[in-house]
């Protein structure tokens, strides 16, 4: 009945097509729920237009969470990728990258929930950070890191840098190793210093490492949830509140599903600005 070619296509692609269709339908449902009146345990899907968005845009908490997300993206993406590149370069130049790579990868391998838990203890009043600062005669810097609203956000951002540095290192290590060695040799013959080689040869050559790492890091910071849930629940006050946590609390704690869906839709809309160009670039690399 079917041609062999069609049968083959069906066997290989039917399962993924099924999954992908479910996912895209779900995106549609989410957007629809964001325009419904579902605000209790009881499902209710009457269309109310953009009312939930109007409510969201007049809620100051939304702007606090959005601002925190933007700060998170900037202070996470920049340092993680730059530090990742620098460490990868130093690592490769020692020739002992095996051991160091493994060390930096361990935080990447564990869950963000546990990473958050470990760091809540690190940041505790008598925790490792304050103890170390006191031992180094820097006791005046000791503070209750995650219960101080002025620094809690930055303390959590640091944890995500700690977690994702290993990922950035791997991306840049692969990019550095892909550079034609003759470029580096030529610079060395010209008498360039290691710093000049790094700046004039390595950095321009690992552009594509940035194209891979930076969008993925930005996405991770945009959807951030786990660590906020486990470490601060958005507090103190709203100091560490982010869209991902705001969404979850609204939908699954207060049971305002429609309002939660509206926040999810905003996160999704922002993410498309990163995901679509990223997928297009990957597509070009893929089918070269």
């Amino acid at each position, binding site marked *: 009945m079917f041609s062999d070619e069609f049968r083959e296509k069906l066997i290989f692609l039917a399962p993924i097509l099924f999954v992908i269709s479910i996912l895209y339908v779900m995106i549609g449902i989410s957007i629809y729920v964001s325009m419904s009146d579902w605000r209790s345990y009881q499902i209710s899907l009457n269309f109310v237009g953009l009312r939930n968005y109007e409510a969201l845009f007049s809620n100051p908490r939304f702007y606090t969470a959005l601002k925190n997300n933007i700060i998170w993206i900037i202070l996470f993406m920049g340092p993680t990728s730059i530090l990742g590149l620098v460490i990868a370069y130093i690592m490769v130049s020692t020739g002992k990258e095996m051991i160091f790579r493994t060390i930096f990868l361990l935080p990447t391998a564990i869950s963000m929930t*546990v990473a958050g838990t470990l760091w809540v203890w690190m940041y505790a009043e008598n925790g490792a950070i304050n103890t170390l600062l006191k031992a180094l005669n820097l006791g005046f810097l000791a503070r209750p890191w995650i219960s101080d609203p002025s620094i809690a956000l930055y303390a959590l951002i640091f944890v995500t840098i700690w977690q994702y540095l290993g990922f950035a290192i791997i991306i840049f290590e692969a990019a550095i190793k892909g550079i034609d060695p003759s470029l580096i040799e030529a610079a060395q013959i010209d008498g360039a210093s290691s710093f000049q080689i790094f700046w004039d040869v390595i950095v321009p050559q690992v552009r594509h490492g940035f194209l891979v790492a930076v969008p993925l890091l930005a996405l991770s910071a945009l959807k951030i949830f786990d660590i906020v849930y*486990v470490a601060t629940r958005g507090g103190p006050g709203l100091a560490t509140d982010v869209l991902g946590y705001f969404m979850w609390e609204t939908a699954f704690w207060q049971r305002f599903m429609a309002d939660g869906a509206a926040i999810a839709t905003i996160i999704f809309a922002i*993410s498309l600005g990163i995901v679509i160009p990223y997928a297009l670039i990957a597509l070009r690399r893929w089918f070269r």
Partner: protein
Amino acid sequence: MSINAKMAIAYALLIFMSLFWMLPFYVALVTSLKSHEETYTTNVLQPPSTIDVTPWISAWKSIERAFFNSIIVSLPSTFLCVMIGTLAGYYLSRHVSRATRTLFFLIAIATFIPYQILLIPMTMFLAHIGVMGTYLSFIIAYTILLSPWAALISSAFFMAIPKELEEASYIDGASALQTFFRVVLPVALPGIISTTIIIFMSIWNEFLFAVTLSTSPLIRTIQPEVANLRGTTTVAWNTLMAGSLIAILPPLIITLALGRYFISGLLAGALRGTR
């Protein structure tokens, strides 16, 4: 500056960074082996005067069920994702057309969008088919969420395998499916291992869906259980640290034992290609 001096600075920097990066693990381990009293009376950085394993025992008692729940949930979901993913990934690597490029694009979008947009409809769907509150809810959710990524990761590895291999098999009259299972999969094994590791670790570490689908303590998986331990004020730091270390044992062991596969999986998973 001489080469030796430069190397010395490079090593000093790397070693300092490495030590600082390992500090949370060290502190967790040291704390988890201290008695309740000693956690409050001694310096956090100091090793325990006598090793006390009771925190590990009480932590294991409170998270044992969740640990096994996570295994029960992760293994079948990982298997299904890798199955669905490799079938699609293989096809994508062997057929380049407008249609496959579009499919690749749609899969990539589905892989990288934040999970928040899928959370509410997924719970509606799982409740609708009547599996909420069972292991099946996790297995179905994770299979749907992660098979697209498995397709992309495995496809990167299949790309690197020369097509000549299969041509011989086709000449012998084998079907595409036979060729896939008998000829391609064995050669692609390292790539399949990488894909499996990445998917397994993503499921094991996932939190947003885990906390939402864990509607009862009976089916609660490991990450929400750890978050729960932290939430209850009665749990002491030594027990919490022991519990945290138990929860990260599987990914840590995989990274230490199969680091090479984890790394190539991460690179493929970032859609960077395998080279």
